[in-house]
């Protein structure tokens, strides 16, 4: 039996669609709940980010609880940046006890790119070790070797960067993640289908599901900002030019067109198993992108 609704879909033939919601800075969760409500019946699962870009926010686990409350399917993003192995295991136990069983295991951005630059970077575990930690927990033990009274079960995912400018070490790490038990991958934002094709030629030898990460850009300026400041992101010049060609105030519309075009092509050409749409601050437009890409809502 599947550990979650998302896991069940993962092993069906369905073209998967996930998206993400970033928790707010502060207690006012009205916008987050609004975005969860907009997305929960349109996508197969909603990722809740974990202090994205190392900016302190309402916690991922809190956001996942809200997704459950609203009747959606959450993916709990867990980074290694802020918690040591005790805290991570404890949060995973809490998550599972509340029916949050999809986990995306990430190293986490550097503290230095965020808004608490003087904080202590933890990184007690890395992403591969985190994946193995989850397998250990599922076997009924904690990392200290003690037996659990009540073991958790999860559906575990990880991240991969098909457009990294130096791909070889990234692929080695990808294989380590597969060996550590990753069932699905949500890729870093990709912009060129050639790199995705190349990556899938390689990745199809592994029994894992790949969801292509699609970042919705809202202007040429945003694209340039991401190139300069967001870890790992490389927006190619033709996409920046296309965004620049949009008239004043039409940047987001153009960004949505680009995203929808990518999603539609990926689905039509069956390039990978699904897409993960990241609208970074514009979560409300994801249903429109799905409509533009002619993707029907998540089957219950």
């Amino acid at each position, binding site marked *: 039996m599947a550990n979650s609704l998302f896991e069940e879909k993962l092993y069906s033939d369905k073209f998967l669609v996930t998206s993400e919601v970033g928790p707010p800075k502060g207690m006012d969760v009205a916008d987050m709940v609004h975005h969860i409500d907009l997305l929960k019946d349109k996508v197969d699962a909603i990722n809740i980010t974990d202090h994205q870009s190392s900016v302190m926010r309402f916690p991922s686990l809190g956001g996942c609880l809200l997704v459950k409350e609203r009747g959606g399917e959450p993916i709990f993003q867990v980074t290694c940046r802020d918690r040591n192995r005790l805290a991570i295991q404890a949060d995973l136990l809490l998550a599972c006890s509340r029916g949050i069983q999809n986990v995306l295991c990430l190293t986490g951005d550097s503290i230095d790119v965020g808004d608490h630059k003087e904080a202590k970077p933890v990184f007690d575990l890395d992403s*591969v070790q985190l994946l193995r930690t989850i397998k250990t927990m599922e076997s009924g033990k904690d990392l200290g070797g003690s037996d659990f009274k009540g073991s958790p079960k999860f559906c575990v995912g990880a991240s991969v960067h098909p457009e990294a400018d130096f791909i070889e070490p*990234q692929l080695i790490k990808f294989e380590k993640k597969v*060996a550590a038990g990753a069932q699905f991958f949500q890729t870093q934002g990709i912009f060129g289908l050639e790199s995705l094709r190349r990556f899938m030629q390689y990745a199809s030898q592994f029994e894992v599901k790949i969801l292509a990460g699609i970042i919705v850009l809202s202007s040429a300026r945003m694209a340039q900002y991401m190139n300069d400041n967001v870890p790992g992101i490389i927006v190619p010049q033709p996409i920046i030019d296309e965004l620049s060609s949009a008239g004043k105030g039409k940047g987001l519309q153009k960004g949505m067109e680009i995203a929808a075009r990518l999603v539609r092509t990926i689905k039509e050409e069956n390039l990978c198993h699904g897409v993960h749409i990241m609208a970074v601050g514009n979560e409300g437009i994801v249903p429109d992108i799905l409509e533009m890409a002619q993707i029907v809502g998540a089957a219950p």
Partner: protein
Amino acid sequence: MTVCGAGGEREVSFLHGALRVAQVKGGDGVHAFLEYTVKRQCDREFLDPLGDRVSEVDAILSLGCGVGVQVVAERFPDVPALPGVNTSFMGATEQGGVWDERCAACGDCRLAETAGICPITRCTKGILNGPCAGTKNGKCEANKDIDCAWVLIYKRLESLGQLDKIRRYYPPRNFRTIPRPRRLAGITSIDLGGSNG
């Protein structure tokens, strides 16, 4: 002796002169400054020559590393010991006046598996199983002026024909090898030949 120009006989002399000048130019009290350079500051017996002098002073300003300041404080408990330098890291000289951190003295050395490039010191996240996805143009996501340690490690292992070392899984670090404060016991100076270098 000093390598980084922070705390040898010459630096002690410069600081002594600077303190006297500062006092003449605007000091609000009258202080006498004495200078003395010990051969080694992390072994108590090397501090013995200071014994008589210390009884005459209100404080000791140390240009040794943080270890030296603390040994002075332990050796002379009745006199405040002040740090005259901000001990930063163990580094290598990159060029004149520029040093790069290379070793965290973590007690969990990985250099045999990482082509002599330390991921604990030189990767901002200190991770063990390969690069994060933030590396761009061979640089670190935290600082575009710093090389990504894992890109360097990969390239060097590749040229050494040792990529199997990066393919291995490395389990979580044993931070218990570094309970603070650490103690290294079982090796005496006699075992080491009694060197005083």
